[in-house]
């Protein structure tokens, strides 16, 4: 029987050719889609932890995420057939006036790898667009990213817009280099995470998973 540890390793090192062919091999060997997904997620978790400890940097994270996405595309039909449903839908975006998206993309990729259905709204997203997307997709989690001190007020405006719509069961998680826990408290967000790896833990915690 094939060892899923090789798949974990291929995701972690961003080797997409190997990761996709191992995913196919695992499916052909009738391993359960869930066990294959779990092996991939371990790979992303491990690289995420290394990133947090400054042992790897943005390029290594990006190729790992790419290997994950391409392998997921192969796995997804079988996952769906096996009755797998994402735990919840999350909306994510960089707030109005802000064009930085590397950090937001990494969080989005990590969330996708952790059984969330992620709707990525891109950059420079207005409060209205966030609200509309939450409604449209019945999202239970929203992630806001800001890299500029000048766009932190847009984050506040977005939180206010979401709260004023009484979308009470949606949790708001914020992040980005200048953002802090005390800023999250101040604007009434439900949580803050300093990096992509902890963004997964925080998301699950807020959603009451784990």
């Amino acid at each position, binding site marked *: 029987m094939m060892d899923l540890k090789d798949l974990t390793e291929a995701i972690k090192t961003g080797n997409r050719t190997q990761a996709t062919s191992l995913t196919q091999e695992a499916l052909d060997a009738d391993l359960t889609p869930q066990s294959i997904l779990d092996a991939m997620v371990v790979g992303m978790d491990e690289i995420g932890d290394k990133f947090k400890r400054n042992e790897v940097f943005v*390029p290594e994270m990006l190729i790992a995420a790419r290997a994950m996405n391409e392998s997921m595309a192969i796995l997804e039909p079988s996952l769906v057939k096996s009755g797998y449903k994402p735990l919840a839908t999350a909306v994510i975006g960089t707030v109005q006036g802000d064009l930085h*998206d590397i950090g937001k993309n990494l969080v989005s990729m990590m969330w996708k790898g952790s059984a969330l259905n992620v709707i990525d709204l891109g950059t420079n997203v207005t409060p209205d667009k966030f609200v509309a997307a939450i409604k449209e997709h019945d999202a239970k989690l929203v992630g806001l990213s800001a890299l500029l001190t*000048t766009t932190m007020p847009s984050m506040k405006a977005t939180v206010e817009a979401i709260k004023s719509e009484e979308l009470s069961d949606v949790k708001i998680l914020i992040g980005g280099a200048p953002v802090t826990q005390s800023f999250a408290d101040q604007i009434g967000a439900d949580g803050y995470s300093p990096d992509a790896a902890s963004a997964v833990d925080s998301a699950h915690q807020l959603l009451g998973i784990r």
Partner: protein
Amino acid sequence: MNNYERYMGMVKGEQVDYVPRIPILMHYAAKHIGASYADFAGDYNTLVKANIALAEDFGVSQLDIMSDPWRETADYGAEIEYLETTCPQCLKHPLEDSKDLSLLTRPEVGKTTRLTAAIKAIEAYKAYGYKEYSITGWVEGPAAEASDIRGVSNFMIDLIDDEEFACELMDLCVDVAIEFAKAQIAAGADTIGVGDAIASQMSADMYERLVFPREKRLVDGIHEAGGLVRLHICGNTNHILPVAASLGVDIIDCDWMVDVVKVRELFPKNTVIAGNLDPVEGIMESTPEKIHQNFIDLYHKVGNPYFVNAGCEVPMDTPKENLQALCKPIQYNSSI
């Protein structure tokens, strides 16, 4: 002693009267003269007017052409949207979907718009205050410009996936940057800033192997043309600075996360260290008294040669009194 003499004196390791101050001001500059950011970035007359106003109103030691990340990229063929209140936005990176270098326009002074505008700005500075103020031109560093041309995530992936292409693209960027720097020096710039922000997001090993040799060629090219080199890499650069120490730059900007005492140990003794209070907590949200005192303490910690500077751009909403405090003269101390 005028601002130019003070600046050059510090660079040469001579005794000066007080410490030069070289804050990075862009959004603040536009706001200070009531101009839109679109004009600040897109019209060189506005850029010149704003920088002269900062020199006159606050005593900034330099006249600067920095306005946004897209000057070269625009001339390489990017689609740029100029916005009223903030930095322009790149709608389409020239090689976002392709690795064909022949699709790029080659930016050239006299032919392409924004490089030419930079030269006109420097000529205007020269007419206004040659040898009264330092005139600082800028070029994008190899990693920054390659990221702007490909889109930053694409280029970060290229560095692992297709090293040969990534290097070829950076080599082109260095060729163009050297030509652009030479034109700026010929027009009157004494210093060329090299901005390579994205270099802080890669490992020290990748930086050393792929980016450092290209930054080095750029630094040598600027020196050959008779300019001083100021390197600015935003963010936490502690891990790459031991490598960058042998670039031979004259001025090293340090962002607020950087250990400046360590930088003094790593870099040649005659390198000017510029920095490094946190632009937000240390400048915008601080008080004039604290800002002045913190710069005095920092100067004594770092020692000569030193320039007063925030870690990075001073935010637009900084109170006027706080910028005045940043620029308040600090006596030169010959015993540090």
